């Protein structure tokens, strides 16, 4: 009994820490939700919706500030990975629920609102909103969510405020690669790199012919590899090569590992070129452009340049897990869908804003296959480990890497298959379901018509689950909920077990 009480008070002190950091992240979420109010300066007749943003944002902000003040954090005790997982799960839940409120106010039902918000924070870009008729405040808020979700809420918080030392939080949110050997300086570097790209992107898109509002939204969503657009035809609305070119550069920057970005920033081009991910990106992009061009776009478009442009843009958009389109993918044939599914499954670079299985994992598995074969021809006692370049570091691959990555890819494929099966139950075709769920779990956002305002609520929930699992990479969600489920009875004193 005594031991039980002791354990309980220990858990209580840990959860005070957890709540405190969750509250810090939530106050950031509150600020983000209130931010679209600034747009009232340009769209003064949107006051009705602006009030909802302001009220939701400030109440989340002050509510979490209150919790933060109630619990003093214990800075000497750093967070463990499981505690980071709980914080991520809690703060993402708050972000998704609080972010849905303005969508409900703009006329969606709760499921659709949660879907749209999840699609925003996870940088997916699937949408059930009619962008032609919706308020510009909502459009800007969608882009803002993608911008923040792309960088990662933990990274934003750590770069802005004093937070916990240690890397458990950033690791839990899937942003573990550090640029410098100090988590705070590293997050600041990432955030400043990210925002300077965003600024350059806005200017470049403006020069390419977009309006300021479109340029800001598209720069936000291209760099975060999100893919929300302000136009119903997405990038096809402009039908201009220079717009597409800028967008492709931004999407590629967003999908590049920040370690590689940082090496480039410091002028180490050779190191960046040595990265396995850069090789894979080049090869896969080349092959897929060739495949799409050869099989599909030559049939759909008249001029050679038009054919090439469509193939290139769609490949980059799918591989970077952004999800912008220049043409209606429903008209594309089965072979092109399959190519795009492959691209969406591979996804972007690890430690970038992209989703998917991640190029790094694919590289490691390819190395593993060749290593496995090579081992048969070597003497029994020989020591030979494959190596791979990540950023500026040479990494020796061990069995542990292969185990982790093998399990991850297995889980990814399993959940993709299960999710696709679920979509077929709602009356969609085999090809459509596989395409749409690959897009959902990879946080891509390309759609062949499965996701729409007419989709049933339960189908949207299946997709919401896929987006969250895909963005947070499974383990964190499992671990966070399991830990909460185990600790909650002890904290509330419902159980007598010690």
């Amino acid at each position, binding site marked *: 009994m005594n031991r039980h009480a002791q354990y309980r008070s220990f858990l209580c002190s840990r959860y005070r820490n957890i709540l405190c950091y969750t509250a810090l992240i939530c106050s950031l979420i509150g600020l983000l939700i209130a931010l679209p109010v600034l747009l009232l300066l340009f769209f003064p007749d949107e006051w009705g919706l602006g009030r909802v943003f302001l009220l939701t944002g400030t109440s989340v902000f002050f509510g979490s500030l209150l919790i933060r003040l109630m619990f003093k954090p214990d*800075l000497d005790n*750093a*967070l*463990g*990975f499981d505690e980071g997982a709980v914080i991520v799960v809690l703060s993402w839940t708050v972000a998704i629920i609080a972010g849905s409120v303005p969508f409900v106010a703009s006329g969606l039902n709760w499921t659709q609102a949660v879907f749209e918000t999840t699609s925003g924070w996870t940088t997916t870009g699937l949408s059930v909103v009619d962008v032609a008729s919706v308020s510009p405040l909502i459009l800007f808020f969608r882009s803002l969510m993608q911008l923040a979700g792309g960088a990662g809420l933990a990274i934003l918080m750590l770069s802005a405020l*004093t937070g*916990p*030392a*240690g*890397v*458990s939080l950033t690791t839990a949110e899937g942003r573990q690669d*550090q640029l*410098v*050997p*100090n*988590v*705070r*300086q*590293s997050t600041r570097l990432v955030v400043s790199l990210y925002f300077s790209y965003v600024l350059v992107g806005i200017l470049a898109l403006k020069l390419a012919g977009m309006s300021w509002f479109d340029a800001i939204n598209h720069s936000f969503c291209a760099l975060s590899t999100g893919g929300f657009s302000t136009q119903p035809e997405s990038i096809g609305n402009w039908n201009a090569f220079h717009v597409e070119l800028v967008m492709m550069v931004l999407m590629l920057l967003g999908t590049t590992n920040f370690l590689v970005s940082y090496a480039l920033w410091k002028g180490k081009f050779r190191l960046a070129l040595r990265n396995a991910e850069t090789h894979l990106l080049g090869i896969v992009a080349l092959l897929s452009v060739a495949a799409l061009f050869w099989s599909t776009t030559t049939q759909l478009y008249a001029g050679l340049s038009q054919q090439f442009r469509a193939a290139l843009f769609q490949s980059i958009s799918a591989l970077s897990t952004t999800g912008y389109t220049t043409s209606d993918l429903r008209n594309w044939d089965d072979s092109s869908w399959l190519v795009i599914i492959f691209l969406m499954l591979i996804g972007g670079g690890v430690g970038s804003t992209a989703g998917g299985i991640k190029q790094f994992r694919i590289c490691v598995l390819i190395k593993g296959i060749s290593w496995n074969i090579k081992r048969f021809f070597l003497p029994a006692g020989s020591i030979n480990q494959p190596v791979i370049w990540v950023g500026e*570091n*040479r990494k*020796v691959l061990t069995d542990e890497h292969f185990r982790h990555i093998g399990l991850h890819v297995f889980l990814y494929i399993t959940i993709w298959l299960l999710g696709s099966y679920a979509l077929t139950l709602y009356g969609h075709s085999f090809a459509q379901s596989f395409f749409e769920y690959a897009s959902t779990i990879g946080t891509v956002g390309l759609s062949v018509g499965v996701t729409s305002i007419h989709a049933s609520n339960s189908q949207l929930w299946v997709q919401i689950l896929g987006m969250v699992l895909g963005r947070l990479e499974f383990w964190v969600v499992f671990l966070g909920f399991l830990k909460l489920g185990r600790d909650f009875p002890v904290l509330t004193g419902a159980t007598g077990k010690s």
Partner: protein
Amino acid sequence: MAEPVKYISVVIVGCGRLGSQLAGQLSADGYNVVIVDQHEKAFKLLPSKFSGFCITGDATEQLVMQSANLENADCLMAMTQKDTLNLMVALVARVIFSVPHVIARVYDPQYEDLFSSYQIETISPTKLSSQAFLQKIQEYIDI
């Protein structure tokens, strides 16, 4: 928890009980910390507040120390079990990488003169603990 104005980078060689504790504390205080050890398993000792880089390799090899970015480091701490290895690592840091501050742990007080002749600061656990014991005895006698 005062934030350092400039990011000071420290390289620690040897991730034992002392090295890992020190690395964790420096990391939590906002320093850039790189820790080097020959065995990957040693890094398991690091506390969770550590957010620096771990480099696996022999610290006497210059390539390893280059990958630890020693030429830009402000301070090196040699904390391995062996005094001679600490001397070697500290000397390389001082002479080849010209690190401004080099501190080494020395068990054997005899070696301290040798270290100081190369302008390497030393901390001797043997000496420190003997002083502490003497002080305790002194307290008993005084009472």
